[in-house]
Structures are given as structure tokens and as C-alpha cells.
């Protein structure tokens, strides 16, 4: 009992009350930042709260510590800030998935560095025990924080490389990889235990710490390379969640409310987004993490037959005619729109149609594109008002009244096999009922190319479907010309 009580006695007892209060306020600001995202109107104010919270946390920390060199700290912040702002200003909206992955890797690395600094200089963090050793509970928190941070770092780097095309998206399957991964993770946990129980654990003492960090870097790498490029969004979200838990672990070490609240928020956010994606794809999280999906599926999909079957191809003029005759058009954007960067010209097209008195709406599937909310942000970029953009549940019943369903670069999210074919890899995933519209127009580059899941789409060969085979941006540009 005594032992346990000692273990629980965290350091830094004499922090002034206002400091604790300031960190609490910062944490509440972060809660309000996420809360703002419940609607676009409140979201900008929410982001403001986030900035305020961060400023409070930074200023409080600087004000309560004897600072050796404010100039160096200022330089570090300035340098980082410049890089961050430049990247944020320059990045194309279509590159968001990569950017998020890159940013995650930085958080992960920062967590490792902080844990290492605490390891080398524990007294600055108030975690040095009376016996000259780092407090046992802090050792556990530090080791776990560093390990999670390292996994986040190397995993995010691979995810970035795959998403950015620096590395092939194909899953790289090592033999016995599950055994290796589980073994390494087990090793990390065992070493953490050893380190916590070790008698020699003063500042900078204990090889276990460094071995844990090294193994964690390795495991992050090993965990992600077998996962196909297209599964990366789920992985990125999972890593987001990890970076949150790493921050929470460091928050325990420092007894810092802001870090704990943030950790829990970010941790939940990543976990919930992963869950939402998996559910909308009707795949289990385990099967994503176990890896190898991209490959198996492209082997399994019988693409060969696509070329043999007859379909109705159309031109931009045909499409323009059908669109301008319609009363109601529903546009279904997908990954292909993002690839072709067709959102701006698409918006021009809808403007022309609206001028002609056609009612135009957008239907967004929860996993259209390659990131949650991917299509929404691209359409917003192209100035499509968000009240013309609808979620699947809200618009799916309207396809029956639509004259034209205009599918631009989407495939899986319209595939009726998800409703009917139990053997299909996407069976059970909710889909948009585009086939209920009087006519369905499909823009894609070729009859051969399949979508993310690598399965064929029956709709291409239906009588009321017209295929518009071309790059999405080019095709829509031509339609705009014909409409004028």
C-alpha cells in the first residue's frame, strides 16, 4: 500500500494556482475549438479559440520557468512558424491528406524529443525523486510517450511518402510480419517494465529508454509499409489518434491539464474518424491495419470482362444537351474530381445550369475521395455554397426525382453491388442510388480503370447510363463550352 501511494505521488507540488488555472483555460479553449466545428458558421470562431488556447499555454509556460535563453527559444519558434505559415499558404487543397500526414510526423517527433529531454534533465520537469532516480510512474509515462511518438513519426513518414507518390502505394508484405510486429511491440512493453523497476534510473541513466525509442521507430515503419496506399487515410487518422495519446502521456508526466485535455480530444478525434471511415467502407479496422488490401483486391477484381461488354459512350455535347434539358440535376463528385482538380470548372458548369433554371444539388458520400470531408473542402474551395451540398442520408431519396445524376470521378460510392452482391468486397457499404435518376452520366478516363476497391461497376453497362470517357477537368470544360 505504501509502495503504491509513493508511486502515485507526482512531482511539482508547489506550482502556483494561477498556472494550473491557465492550463485549464487553455484546455477549455481547445474543447471550444472542436466544438465550433459543429457548423461552418461557428467554425471560424472555434479556430480562434484554438489559437488563444495555444497562446495561453505557451505564455504561461514561458512565464513560470527560469529561461536560460529567450533568444534561442524565440528563434526556434520563429523558424518553425515561418515554415509552417509558408507551407499552409502554398499547399494545394488536393494535397491535404499528405500535409496532415507530414504534420503528424512532426508532432510525433516533438513528443520523442520532449521525452528524451525529460530523460536527460528530469529535474527541470520536476520528476526527479528524492532518491536521485526519476519517479517510477514518470518513467512509465515517459517511455510510453516516447514510444507512441516514435511510432507516430515513422508511421506518418511512410504514410506521407505513399500519399505523396514518393513511394509506391502497393503494400509491401514481409513474411511473418504479424509475428515480427507483435514481438517488437511486446519487447517495447517489456523494456518499459524493466525501466520502471530499474534501480539505476537517474538523469540520463538507463539504456532501456533508448532501445525503446529505437524499437518504436522500427515498429512504426513495419506497421505501415504493408498497408496499401489507398488505405492510408485510415492510417493517418489512426496516427492522429496516437499523437493525441502521446501528448496525454506527456501531460501525465508534467501534470499539465492542457496537455491531458488535448490528448484526449485528439485521441478521440482520430479514433472516431477511423471508425467512421471503416464503417462507411464496411471494413473492419483490424483488416485495414493487418494490411495488404490494395493488392488482394486488385488481384481479385475481374476487370478483364469490362472491355468486352457494350456500353453507351457520349460526348460533351450530348452531356450538355441532357443537362440543359433537365429540371433537376444531382452531382456526385468522387476521387477523380480531386485528381483532375475539376472542382472550379464544375462550379462554372453549375452556375450556367442554374442560369438556365435547372435545380442543381451536390451529393456527398461519407468516404468519397480519400479523406473524410475531402469533397466538401474541394467544393468549398471552388465557392460552392455549403447549403447546396448534402450528405448521403439527406439526399439519397431524391435521386428518384432527378433527371440527371452527374457522376464525376466517383465509382465505388455509386456501385449497386454493395447492395446486392454478397461476394463483393464493398458489400454492405451504403451507396448513393444514382441509378434511380432518369439518366446517369459517368465521367472517368477509361473503361479499364477501377476505383479504390478495384471492383467493376455494373452501372456502366446500363441502358440509361452514358459514359463520358475523358479527364474530368477536360470533359467539364468542354461541357461548359457547349452550354454557353
Amino acid at each position, binding site marked *: 500500500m505504501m509502495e503504491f501511494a509513493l508511486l502515485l*505521488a*507526482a512531482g511539482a507540488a508547489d506550482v502556483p494556482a494561477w498556472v*494550473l488555472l491557465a492550463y485549464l483555460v487553455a484546455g477549455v479553449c*481547445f*474543447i471550444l475549438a*472542436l*466544438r465550433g*466545428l459543429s457548423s*461552418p458558421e461557428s*467554425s*471560424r470562431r472555434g*479556430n480562434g479559440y484554438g489559437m488563444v488556447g*495555444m497562446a495561453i499555454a*505557451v505564455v504561461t*509556460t*514561458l512565464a513560470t*520557468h*527560469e529561461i*536560460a*535563453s529567450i533568444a534561442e*527559444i524565440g528563434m*526556434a*519558434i520563429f523558424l*518553425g512558424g515561418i*515554415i509552417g505559415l509558408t507551407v*499552409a*499558404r502554398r499547399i494545394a487543397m488536393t494535397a491535404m491528406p499528405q*500535409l*496532415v500526414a507530414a*504534420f503528424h510526423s512532426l*508532432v510525433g*517527433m516533438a*513528443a520523442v524529443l520532449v521525452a*528524451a*529531454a525529460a530523460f*536527460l*534533465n528530469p*529535474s*527541470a*520537469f520536476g520528476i526527479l525523486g528524492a532518491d536521485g532516480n526519476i519517479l517510477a510512474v514518470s518513467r512509465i509515462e515517459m517511455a510510453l510517450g516516447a514510444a507512441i511518438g516514435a511510432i507516430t513519426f515513422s508511421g506518418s513518414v511512410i504514410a506521407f511518402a505513399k500519399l505523396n507518390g514518393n513511394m509506391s502505394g502497393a503494400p509491401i508484405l514481409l513474411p511473418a510480419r504479424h509475428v515480427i510486429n507483435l514481438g517488437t511491440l511486446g519487447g517495447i512493453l517489456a523494456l518499459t517494465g524493466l525501466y520502471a523497476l530499474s534501480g539505476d534510473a537517474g538523469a540520463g541513466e538507463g539504456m532501456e529508454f533508448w532501445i525503446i525509442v529505437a524499437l518504436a521507430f522500427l515498429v512504426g515503419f513495419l506497421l505501415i509499409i504493408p498497408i496499401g496506399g489507398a488505405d492510408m487515410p485510415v492510417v493517418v*487518422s489512426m496516427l492522429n489518434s496516437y499523437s493525441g495519446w*502521446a501528448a496525454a502521456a506527456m501531460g501525465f508526466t*508534467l501534470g499539465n*491539464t492542457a496537455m*491531458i485535455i*488535448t490528448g*484526449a*480530444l*485528439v485521441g*478521440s*478525434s482520430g479514433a*472516431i474518424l477511423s471508425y*467512421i471511415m471503416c464503417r462507411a467502407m464496411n471494413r473492419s479496422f483490424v483488416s485495414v491495419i493487418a494490411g495488404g488490401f490494395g493488392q488482394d483486391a486488385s488481384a481479385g477484381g475481374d476487370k478483364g470482362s469490362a472491355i468486352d461488354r457494350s456500353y453507351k459512350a457520349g460526348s460533351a455535347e450530348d452531356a450538355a444537351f441532357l443537362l440543359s434539358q433537365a429540371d433537376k440535376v444531382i452531382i456526385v463528385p468522387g476521387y477523380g474530381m480531386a485528381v483532375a482538380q475539376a472542382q472550379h470548372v464544375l462550379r462554372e458548369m453549375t452556375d450556367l445550369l442554374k442560369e438556365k433554371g435547372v435545380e442543381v444539388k451536390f451529393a*456527398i458520400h461519407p468516404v468519397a475521395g480519400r479523406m*473524410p*470531408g475531402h469533397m*466538401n473542402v474541394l467544393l468549398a474551395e471552388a*465557392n460552392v*455554397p*455549403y447549403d447546396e451540398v448534402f450528405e448521403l442520408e439527406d439526399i439519397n431519396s431524391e435521386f428518384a426525382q432527378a433527371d440527371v445524376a452527374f457522376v464525376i470521378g466517383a465509382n465505388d460510392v455509386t456501385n449497386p453491388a454493395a447492395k446486392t452482391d454478397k461476394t463483393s468486397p464493398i458489400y454492405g457499404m451504403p451507396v448513393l442510388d444514382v441509378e434511380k435518376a432518369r439518366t446517369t452520366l459517368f465521367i472517368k478516363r477509361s473503361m479499364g480503370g477501377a476505383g479504390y476497391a478495384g471492383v467493376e461497376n455494373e452501372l456502366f453497362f446500363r441502358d440509361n447510363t452514358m459514359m463520358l470517357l475523358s479527364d474530368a477537368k477536360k470533359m467539364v470544360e468542354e461541357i461548359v463550352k457547349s452550354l454557353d
Partner: protein
Amino acid sequence: MDFISILSIFVLSCFVGYYVVWSVTPALHTPLMAVTNAISSVIIVGGLIAAAAAGVPGAKWLGLAAVALASVNIFGGFAVTQRMLSMYKKKERK
């Protein structure tokens, strides 16, 4: 703060996180990813503590590096979120 207080705060924060994230509208899931990224850089607090302390120089440099990395994230994350959010507009009623 004692360990149980911290644990209590953590447990309650997990509940808050759960509810607050589910209440985010799906249309803003991409900004959500960006902003959580930005706020998770609150880890900068640890870097600042390490960088502020005189004494062990290794720890100081690690701290400064952490501060720099986290700053990229803070400024980049909030700025890119702001940029995205400023694009979400309602229809102008004429």
C-alpha cells in the same frame, strides 16, 4: 496535482472528446483533422520547459528542436485550418 486528479481529468476529457467529435458535422472532417493536428502541438509546452532550463545542454537542444517542430505544426495547422474554413460559404441571397 496528484495522480488521481490527473486521472480524473483524463477520464472526463475522454468523455468530452467523444461527444465533441461526434458533434462535428461531416462536411468539416478535413478541417477537424487539421485543427486537431495543430492543437496536439501543445506538446510544445514540454519543449519549452526543456529549452528554458539551464544545465544539461543535450536536453536544451532537444527541447529547442521540439519547440521548432511543434511551431511548424502550430502555425501551419491553424493557418491551413483557417484557410479551409474561410472557404465554407453560404449561398448569397440576392
